[in-house]
């Protein structure tokens, strides 16, 4: 094997019937690098600005690599009033909604897949139909319901409406449906109750589904903005995403500060992304992450 062919197999899938020529593969590589850099440079720029002293950010031409890197912006972020409250609120939001959604959606998915009851088909179709309707379309009436319940600017008001997840029910139903009913029946013959079957037979078998649902729910909740924006009022109840906008409104000219706060808010999901990359890159066809 010459160096050329070794390089070649690093580039092309040699078993693909319509693979490009070697030159073609190099051209494709260049196109892919250009397109991916267009999306990655803004993220790099966020990091670079976060390390640049404030005075240097309002100067032309922009410094592509910070010449005097500093952590001052990060210190300034940590001094922002209520910043730690926002972080804690975001953690509460993401963790509690993920836990409740995974638990209740797998229960509902099990019921719809394996324990039919009167009206369960209708209920399933209601869930499917509601998946078509974007959250923004019910924002106003949902806010009225939460106001009537006296839950504006409370944790329950923030969390409960976001725990409704027909998509998660649908996902778990799809996973649980593939389990052989004979297996569950065998456990029943052995005298296991439904709760035990769910806990000891169903859940262990759909662990990859639970992990996938948990990861995408956490990321979606950590990133969510519209509901926390309208349902919280006091600075203490704001979440990190809403806090980022507040920081930018209060300090419109301190770009280093804004970018440092953005980096801190991005780090958890970036860490999760790289830790669970295969879940994101597997391409589950019901995937409903943003485009």
């Amino acid at each position, binding site marked *: 094997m010459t160096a050329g062919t070794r390089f070649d197999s690093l580039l092309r899938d040699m078993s693909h*019937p*319509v693979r490009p020529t070697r030159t073609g593969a190099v051209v494709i*590589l260049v196109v892919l690098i250009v397109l991916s850099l267009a*999306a990655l440079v803004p993220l790099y720029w966020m990091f670079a*600005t976060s390390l640049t002293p404030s005075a240097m950010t309002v100067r032309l031409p922009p410094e592509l690599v910070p010449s005097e890197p500093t952590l001052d912006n990060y210190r300034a972020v940590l001094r922002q009033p209520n910043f730690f409250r926002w972080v804690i609120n975001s953690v509460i939001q993401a963790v509690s909604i993920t836990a409740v959604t995974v638990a209740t959606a797998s229960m509902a998915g099990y019921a719809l897949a394996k324990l039919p009851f009167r009206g369960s088909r209708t209920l399933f179709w209601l869930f499917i139909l509601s998946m078509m309707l974007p959250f*923004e379309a019910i924002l106003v009436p949902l806010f009225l319901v939460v106001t009537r319940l006296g839950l504006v600017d409370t944790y329950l008001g923030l969390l409960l409406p976001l725990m409704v997840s027909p998509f998660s029910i649908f996902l778990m139903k799809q996973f649980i449906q593939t389990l052989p009913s004979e297996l569950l029946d065998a456990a029943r013959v052995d005298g296991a109750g439904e709760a035990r079957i769910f806990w000891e037979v169903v859940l262990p078998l759909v662990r990859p589904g639970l992990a996938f649902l948990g990861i995408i729910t956490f990321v979606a909740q950590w*990133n969510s903005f519209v509901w926390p924006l309208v349902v919280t009022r006091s600075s203490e109840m704001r979440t990190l995403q809403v806090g*980022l906008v507040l920081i930018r409104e209060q300090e419109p000219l301190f770009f280093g500060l804004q970018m440092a706060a953005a980096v801190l808010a991005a780090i958890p999901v970036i860490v999760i*992304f790289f830790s669970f990359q295969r879940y994101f890159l597997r391409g589950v066809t019901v995937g409903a992450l943003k*485009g």
Partner: protein
Amino acid sequence: MAGQAPSVGTAAPRPRPSDRGRGGARTGAVWGVVFAAPQTLLFALFFLIPVVIAFALAFMEVRPTSMSFVGLDNFETVLGDVLFRRAIVNTSIFTAVVVLFWLGKALLIAYLLDPMNHTLQTFFKSAFYLPAVTSSVIISLVWLWIYHPNFGLLNGLVVALGGDPVAWLGNTSTALPALMAMQVIMGGGSSIVLLSAALARIPRDLYEVAIIDGAGRATIFAKVIVPLIRPTLLYLVVTGTINTFQVFEAVYVMTQGGPQFATTTVVYRIYQEAFQRFNLGVASAQAIVLFLITIVLAAVQFRFLGQNVEY
């Protein structure tokens, strides 16, 4: 997933607990209700009731202390509202352009990646996916900084190339295109993954048969690839259009609907009406118009793109 379903027919017939009589089936049904209850209750309280209220409110005038039935007045207000019509036009332009370019980009990348080395594929899929897990607020803040008229990265580049700085988000002619460009450049991560998976499922024999028949790359793309990944494309067009039509974060963070309403979108308009002017009746009527537009969009696309789809 259907392929993994067990072939029930081959199992030896043996008594099932549900055959023990009506008691077993009824116990199962009771447990079904119990297991479905938590999500169903949340769904009823925070989805069904709000939807019903939205329809009811749309025909009411809501004041802090009273409500009165006003028939179709709110809809007249909404459809007669120049700003709301402007918002629909802006959002339609935004959605059409973004979905076209974003999906085109995703399809191009997935197609180019398909015959490449596996490790290289994973690397680029990750690179394109990273912006998709970063929140819209963060992306919007970063691009607000990139588009900054005086010190932004983009104008730094423009000036370095000998041009004059542009107020990207301050001109009525560039503000909406600037938001669209941001969305297309940063978007596409999860669609690339879905399209790649669809391309990888195409049986390689089909390519070989096409090659033997003398088909070139363009023919293979049009006659083999596109028909086979059509369900995935349909799914992405429908969900992409519906989601893009709800654009809000970028407008809220970057332009507040300006300059001169050039970037006012439907959801932003509803937000202003409901949460800045507290006009909940009108906002509900607007939300119902948004709801109807969404349904029509989905239905049209299913009809238009759904023909000849084999599932």
